[in-house]
């Protein structure tokens, strides 16, 4: 859906659902995922339909993912960090996450 205008700059590597992706330092998690071609960020708790970022500015919450074990984080507001483990979220949040 998106490509990078400029591919230079420091890179950071993180994992999305176990798969390694490379991001640009300073990317938000959502931006890095979109650039890596991730199409679905979560499924909804009600009908389990797929969602991806809608607003990229912190208001819609469709970008919710689990980051380093903490569920329902807004991927569009959080900056990537080396070694970050991101998981897309399925349906309801599981207890303890």
């Amino acid at each position: 859906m998106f490509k990078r205008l400029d591919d230079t700059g420091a890179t950071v590597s993180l994992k999305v659902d176990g798969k390694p992706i490379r991001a640009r330092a300073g990317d938000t998690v959502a931006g890095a995922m979109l650039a890596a071609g991730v199409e679905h960020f979560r499924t909804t708790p009600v009908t389990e339909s797929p969602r991806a970022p809608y607003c990229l500015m912190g208001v819609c919450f469709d970008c919710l993912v689990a980051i380093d074990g903490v569920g329902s984080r807004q991927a569009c507001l959080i900056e990537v960090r080396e070694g970050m483990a991101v998981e897309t979220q399925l349906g309801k949040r599981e207890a303890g996450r």
Partner: protein
Amino acid sequence: MNASDLASSYELVVIGGGPAGLAAAALAAKAGVQTVLFDENPGVGGQIYRGIGTTPVRNRAILGEDYWAGAALASEARASGATIVNGATVWSLDPNRLVGVSISGQARMIQAQRVIVATGSMERPFPIPGWTLPGVMTAGAAQTALKAQGLVPTGRTIIAGCGPLLWLLAAQLLRAGAGIEAILDTTPRINWLKAAMHLPDFALSPYWSKGLALLREVKAKVPVIAAHRIVAHGKDKLAEVVFATGTGERRMTADLLLLHHGVVPNVNLAMAAGVAHRWNGRQLCFEPAVDADFGTSVHGIAVAGDGAGIAGGTAAAERGRIAALAVIQTLKPGATVPNMQMMRQTLAREEMGRAFLDALYQPAPSFRRPVGDTIACRCEEVTAKQVRDTADLGCEGPNQMKAFLRCGMGPCQGRLCGLTITELIAEQRRSTPQEVGYYRLRPPVKPITLAELASLPKTEAERKAVER
């Protein structure tokens, strides 16, 4: 900066690091007011100057000179002595100006003598069939991706809606080398008649020549099609956009659909603090009732920038300065400050063209008050029909509607459905949005984990109260 580095109280807390927040913090701090600015994004700039100072977009022509003007604001704020904290989510603000903020998982309660809420605007909900599909985004989202990360859409992109930002985004995407299949222009024809009376003022405003140049630039490269009904189709993601034109239905395959119907104030924090809001019939949204200095119904809390009613980035900065000046006059009466009259003049000039834009780009009722299975509340997946039927059953307002349908109770806390629900209820009950009102909002206005709450420092007395 960590939460533990914060003082327990500040003379001024500014919430939001867009033009209003940056200008307010800079002016106040320079006058000696002890100021902290909290912003939830990784960097300052707000949405309009998103990524200023860090954007990978080096060719200045792509984003345009208006964007780069943000650099001066940001460096002024940085040099002012204000403490600027990014990645700081404000989840609570009460009428006594106690601010709940969370920074990298650590929460703190900060007492402020004065608060300037500069949380800006968000895009108006655009509830059409299929608007929850991956591949459907707001125009602002694409703009954010471009500014902050240098991301450009690939594949078939369609832009739909109306408003000045739509044309700006189209121009920026084209300059960045993206292809745009079509712009579906939803401006209702009748709006031209309503806007005509405001044309003389608009012709004198800074928007006039800039706007015309943008229109020309975009129309030379992209087909613009008038459309009055738009549907996004696809199974797991967008595949096709179907739209109604004056000459019948058309369909286009698409990978990305960018929607835009103007921006509206982001009211959640101010409303949760108890600030009185009213319906703006011209901009079709709720906005805080403010005085000439952007003070609100709650003592010591001001709302500046687009959060106080949409007027654009330059106006936002002036509003921020005016709000800051009021703070300086109370807390540091001796300080030397710039001339308030000049600020008010710039503000007036900026606000001048607004009436024309508001009238011309008022989205059609069918795009604000959906019907049938179209989703009104994205989080809880509540349809327009459910809301209308429940209103017919006697449900009088948005808060009761929550109890019936759970609309507005998902993670976005009503941000993406609030206006739709209010307008739907008003229509079904033959009432007005002012009469129907908005969701009652309560803190926390952003989700916060128990661990974050538990990280709040406790006093000896508080600990004793729960120990036996």
